């Protein structure tokens, strides 16, 4: 698979084939020799990324570690079964996504107040307007159904392609487009600046 050019102006970590090759080598060492060092490195490559993604999916703080460890339990036990049909990152994030859905379902059954991600985290802005937009965006994101939010976060927070998002969510590419289309419509309703932009008709 040729390396795709990534022109994203933001400095986020983006899953790329170059990373995939080195991570597959780690997985191979885990599968062949149960290499703890390789496992620890792979765990470290994903811990921060998954922690933030799960927090932004409103997975409760106390469940995040369990979701990550359940995910890497699967990575450890199924390392030899990974056939490489998809990128390693889509496999791992896809496992985490399904574990997160289970955690969210379980959390709904518990009579405990929801603990969405820290609102303060989006209150840092370079100007008052920026700050307001960030807060509006946070509110908009919280209104999205989890499937739509995940498609949006995978696209923008982690910088995945449409095909990769489809592989992670285990759904057709067109379903990803539809979910993101609906998410975009919802965000426009809550973020005045976006509504103004889309109001410019041709």
């Amino acid at each position: 698979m040729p390396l795709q050019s990534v022109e994203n102006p933001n400095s986020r970590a983006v899953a790329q084939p170059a990373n995939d090759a080195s991570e597959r080598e780690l997985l191979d060492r885990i599968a062949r020799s149960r290499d703890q060092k390789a496992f620890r490195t792979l765990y470290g490559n994903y811990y921060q990324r998954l922690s933030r993604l799960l927090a932004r999916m409103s997975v409760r703080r106390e469940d995040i570690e369990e979701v990550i460890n359940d995910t890497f339990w699967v990575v450890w036990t199924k390392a030899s079964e990974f056939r490489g049909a998809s990128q390693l990152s889509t496999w791992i994030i896809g496992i985490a996504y399904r574990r997160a859905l289970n955690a969210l379902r379980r959390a709904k059954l518990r009579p405990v107040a929801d603990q969405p991600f820290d609102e303060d985290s989006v209150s840092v802005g370079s100007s008052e307007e920026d700050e307001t937009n960030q807060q509006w965006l946070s509110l908009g994101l919280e209104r999205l159904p989890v499937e739509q939010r995940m498609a949006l976060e995978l696209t923008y927070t982690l910088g995945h392609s449409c095909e990769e998002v489809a592989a992670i969510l285990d759904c057709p590419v067109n379903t990803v487009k539809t979910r993101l289309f609906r998410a975009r419509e919802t965000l426009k309703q809550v973020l005045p600046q976006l509504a103004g932009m889309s109001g410019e008709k041709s």
Partner: protein
Amino acid sequence: MSPRIPDTHAEAWALLPWLANGRLAAEDREWVEAHVQVCAECRAELAAQRLIDSHVARADATSPQPAASDEQRSFNKLWARIEAAESASAPITGTGSAGSPAPRTSRTVRWLAAAVVVQAIGLGALGLAFSNGERGKDYVTVTSPVGGTRSNAPAVTLVFSPGTSISTINTLLMHQGLSIVAGPGLSGNFRAELSPDAVASGATAETVAAVMSKDPNVSLAEPIAR
């Protein structure tokens, strides 16, 4: 009004998020960019998508980062779970499975031996405790404390480093006034409670957990909320 073919417009519109994040495949990028050049509606939408992109990226960049110590602690829990599971399924002959390095196998066997002894103590205590109360019905997760709450004594969850001898474990417990009352759980975790004497001398689950967590023979020590 810009000239546009309806289907092309709809397809380009759907792909704009990936034009904004730079991950559109080359063969699509060419025609989507060409369409955006002549379609003001898509240009405005692309600007909106880039705004969402930058907002989401900034929210992510400013969100609280887990500490490195959290990552290590979390990994230790997972590794203890793996060790416990592999010890349970490992052959006791000590010959090891194919591909497993010999030192790891011997460590596993030593850990298994220690775990069996401590498990016997724990099971005995658990049996006594169950005989006086109702068995807990809650689903127990990997990170749950082992066993139900059967006393009001301050308690901690402990995971010992693989290879720690039973005498070392006993010494550690004795110094802190702790007794194991349940375990090991799925992740090799034990529940230990403070003796009345230790409580009377000012020890709490938090202070004991803080001391235990600094010991190299302990990979996890956390107070259990009462």
